[in-house]
């Protein structure tokens, strides 16, 4: 029972396949029973990977319990049944950490699904970190003006040429390096640093693919921090561009922003667009639920 085109099936399943690959797979599935069965069963289970509305809170609880169990104890509990007895501590930790996590986990998932388009090498990253330390900046908007005029490294994609004005030998972080640094800060929970780096990326490399993608990540962080209007502007900015990779995530964030702003008609239209365009996305269930509530 060979899985003769398994690699093609996985590419399609992950959304990494080109249109010609899809056509090739469709043609193959019509004549190969084994691959057809594999494809059908894979599809059956993919439907169960959808996110639920309360997942972010649940993950926050899991994280708080894990921290409480492992950071505070030399010998961690072996089973969850013991851990549950420590629930008050976990709940307290959760409350302290706040419910602001919101859809943070979902946003992170988006970054997990779509890696940076041009991940920098370790050397490039090291250069960018060294540069950051050397200039004392964290990517904040108040960075020294000289940084904006330093020569860019060669690996900066699609960024406008900038004149060299400073004598510094350290290269400016590339768009991909900045994007990676911002993502790392976000993953480590350094939300302010992450937001500052995303903003720097957008200011310095406004036309780069990384700046475009960063709008979704920054939008999520802004939404969680209560800056709803700014978040909406970020999501709108992404959707106005040509990139399609994070459209479901951008629509999800935009819908939540509109919900908080009380713009019900626009919110309903947004969810309708998500459901009709991406019916299999992880956010479709949430969108349908909101549509029902809005009726």
């Amino acid at each position, binding site marked *: *029972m*060979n*899985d*003769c*085109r*398994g*690699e093609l099936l*996985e*590419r399609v399943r*992950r959304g990494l396949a080109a249109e010609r690959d899809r056509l090739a797979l469709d043609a193959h599935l019509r004549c*190969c029973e*084994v691959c057809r*069965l*594999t494809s*059908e*069963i*894979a599809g*059956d*289970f*993919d*439907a*169960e*990977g*959808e*996110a639920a509305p309360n*997942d972010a809170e*649940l*993950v926050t609880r*899991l*994280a708080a*319990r*894990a*921290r409480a*169990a*492992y*950071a*505070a104890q030399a010998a*961690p*509990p072996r089973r*969850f049944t013991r*851990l549950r007895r420590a629930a008050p501590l976990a709940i307290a930790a959760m409350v302290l950490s706040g419910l602001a*996590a919101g859809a*943070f*986990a*979902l946003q*992170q*998932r988006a970054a*997990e699904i779509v*890696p940076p388009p041009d*991940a920098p090498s*370790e050397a490039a990253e090291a250069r960018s970190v060294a540069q950051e330390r050397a200039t004392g900046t964290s990517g904040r908007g108040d960075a020294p003006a000289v940084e904006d005029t330093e020569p860019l490294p060669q690996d900066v994609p699609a960024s406008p040429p900038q004149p060299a004005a400073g004598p510094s030998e350290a290269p400016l972080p590339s768009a991909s390096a900045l994007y*990676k640094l911002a*993502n790392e800060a976000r*993953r*480590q*929970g350094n939300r302010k640093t992450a937001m500052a780096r995303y903003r720097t990326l957008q200011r310095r490399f406004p036309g780069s693919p990384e700046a475009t993608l960063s709008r979704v990540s920054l939008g999520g962080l802004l939404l969680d921090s209560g800056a709803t209007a700014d978040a909406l502007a970020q999501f709108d900015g992404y959707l106005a561009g040509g990139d399609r990779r994070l459209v479901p995530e951008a629509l999800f964030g935009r819908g939540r922003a509109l919900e908080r702003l009380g713009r019900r008609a626009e919110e309903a239209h947004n969810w309708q667009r998500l459901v009709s365009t991406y*019916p299999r996305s992880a956010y*479709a*269930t949430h969108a*349908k639920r909101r549509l029902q509530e809005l009726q």
Partner: protein
Amino acid sequence: MAKPALKLVRPSPVGAAPDPLRALASRAAEGDGDAIHALVMELGAGMLRTVRKVLGAQHPDAEDVTQDAVMGFVGGLARFRGECTVAHFAHQVALKRALHARRHFTTRDRVGEVDADIEERGVARGGSPLDAAISRERRRIVRELLSRLPEPTAEALALHFMLGYTVEEIAAVSEISPNTVWSRLKLGKRALKEALSRDRRLAELLREKLS
């Protein structure tokens, strides 16, 4: 047909891109509370989805099993040797815990109840109620089979069908050769094909669809 060339998506460190979570995982392994928290925030949702795929989308024990998996994952970081990415490691732990939990459930009928939501989703996304019922039956058969198969075979099959791992990714997370993965998948798929062909309810539904 011949086996495909095993040249696709290889998890780090075999691949070129460094694992973005490796440094965070190292800190978490040393007991850094912030790192543990950040790591679970990053990977917890994926682990939860993995558990749901094995148990059923709204299984009442999904949170408990996921919590157990998270504890196993964090506790296992000290022994993690980097044969695969941290994310793959986390998902594998979640899958193993969920498979183990499923084998030990005494109230298996509870699993059946919670699939109704998935069926509704299937209908809502454009499939017919009959298609949704067929999909539900196939999931039930796969899950029952996973509980009966030898654990290594069940794990390979679940990683492939439920998480969409390639042969090489399964080999990396399980620390076995791709040929061994191929053998296990072959055995598992053969057993699955037999189970599907023997199931009366599914056969009736398929007949109904053809008629």
